[in-house]
């Protein structure tokens, strides 16, 4: 049994009178791809925000590789090795594709203003190795020919791939993907599935928040189901159809569609 990389305990968050997350507890073992599913408003995205430092919970704890995360800033958590995405790709629009990925690669607290002025040439030389790595990553995601294009000019699908290239460049320990399949065509979907598989085989732990259940079934070893801010089930996907609470909250809806 692998040890847990991410441990969430009794996480609670209210917005006004709305209990977005209630006593949420689960653990994600190292090296696994885990799905986080549930109907809209179940609190999935809030959990992602709380874990990645973009929100502060009312109570509860989050531990990442044994380190407490609550109270840390998002940039600190990111440098600890946890990279999250957002529901829409958030590329740096007026930066080139190359710079977008290079920024993810060189994930510093802050590039020194002083050294940027005094040691410009040395910094450039130091960056060359990272540029080489980024070129290889762009090649892998089919973006090599677009490296000097502004990210804003990319198509929706290319922006998704750019997001994955940034993650690959950052070499994180834990990746949280918030709806990576939103607005994605089937062809690109296959590519995204492959990318997730590649991250896992590189030793990353991946959490996928998603509504696309066939995608979850294919890529995730284990699934966590949330409803009304609580975790209502955790286990392999195949077992969920027998869980009446899950069927009532979420899967039932899906079957009526199918």
């Amino acid at each position: 049994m692998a040890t847990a990389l991410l441990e969430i305990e009794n996480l609670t968050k209210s917005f006004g009178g709305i209990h977005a997350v209630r006593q949420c507890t689960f653990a994600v073992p190292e090296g696994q791809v885990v799905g986080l599913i549930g109907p809209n408003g179940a609190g999935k995205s809030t959990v992602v925000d709380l874990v990645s430092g973009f929100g502060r919970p009312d109570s509860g704890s989050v531990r990442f590789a044994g380190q407490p995360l609550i109270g840390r800033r998002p940039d600190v958590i990111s440098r600890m090795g946890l990279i999250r995405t957002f529901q829409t790709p958030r590329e740096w629009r007026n930066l080139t594709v190359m710079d977008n990925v290079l920024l993810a690669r060189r994930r510093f607290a802050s590039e020194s203003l002083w050294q940027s002025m005094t040691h410009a040439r040395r910094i450039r030389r130091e960056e060359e190795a990272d540029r080489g790595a980024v070129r290889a990553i762009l090649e892998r995601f089919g973006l090599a020919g677009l490296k000097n294009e502004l990210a804003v000019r990319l198509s929706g699908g290319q922006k998704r791939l750019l997001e994955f290239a940034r993650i690959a460049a950052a070499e994180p320990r834990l990746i949280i993907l918030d709806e990576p399949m939103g607005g994605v065509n089937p062809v690109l979907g296959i590519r995204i599935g492959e990318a997730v598989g590649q991250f896992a085989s590189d030793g990353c732990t991946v959490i996928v928040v998603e509504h696309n259940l066939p995608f979850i079934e294919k890529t995730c070893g284990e699934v966590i189901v949330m409803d009304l801010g609580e975790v209502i089930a955790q286990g392999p996907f195949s077992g969920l159809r027998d869980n009446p609470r899950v069927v009532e909250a979420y899967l039932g809806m899906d079957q009526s569609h199918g």
Partner: protein
Amino acid sequence: MYWVSVITEAGIFAILALGLDVVWGWGGDFDLAFYGYLALGSYMTFVLAIGKPTPPVEYIIGWRLPVPVAMLAAIVVVVGLAAIIGAIALRNLRDIYFAVTTLGAVSALYLLVENYTPLFDGYNGVYGLINPGQTLLHLTYNGYRLVLLAVVLLLLFLAYLLVQRLSRSPFGRMLRAVREDERAAAAYGRQVFFTKYRAYLFGAALAGLTGGLFAIFISAFNPSAWTPQELLVIYAAILVGGRGNPRGVILGVFVVYVGFIELTRFLPSPASRPDFGPAARQVLIGLMIILMLRFRPAGIFKERPGVDTAGAPAPLEAAPAGDDPGGLPASAAARDTARGRQRADQGGT
């Protein structure tokens, strides 16, 4: 000599614009306190360099430091004020909230300076000749003006080199990433506030330097010299030249100052309406902003993103493939489309 003055003034404002462009052009923060930093730099240079006030004139300090030392000290004071305003305004406020907060700060400063006479002699302002080296070098007045022009242009060139270098550096890249999407910047490890804050202080330092040069150039400074319209002209210049492009910003300042403000002085002004010229100037600047925003919003020179030249692996056939809705680059798209088709066939059977 008239044109020497015009170009000296434009050169001084070009340094100011370079600083403001770091804050607004790269950082995205529409700062309305910025002209206040020039004003404070100017006042401080005066009170540190021109000696004791003669009553009824009153102002603080009244030292007689060497001019470069006074200017450096003035920059330190300006950066100190920017550190306070920036710490409050940049932490959580963005866009219009940031602009209004900085406007409030500069308005408070303005009212304080105008009404509290012991500070900088209120409405009358401070004045006095600061002409470093004129007596030392035995220069005539005109010769001195030429030397001053040369010094200003040299400082502008140095400021340009510095800013240009910063623009291409990792710091410039990070600051622009924060401007484009600060949540994503934080998600990739960047300290959003600290990044913006340092850019703000850097810009304020250039504004402080500009204030010192301005003090030397016009030998007087009072509240009417830093009305809000002055800052609007700087913003217009950045907009015209090219926001985020240091070369464009300098060009923009010369176009706006020399082209609009000075040339409009030669507009015929009816004797009955002596205010026609200044009014026409304001109208022209407003018109120029509108036309630029409509037809060339990026300015004369666009912001230049970093170009990666080495190891170019793929030719630019990688334009989005026509038949692929995901818009994948051609080679990958061809492969994936084939696979997708295969999958669709399977689904069909």
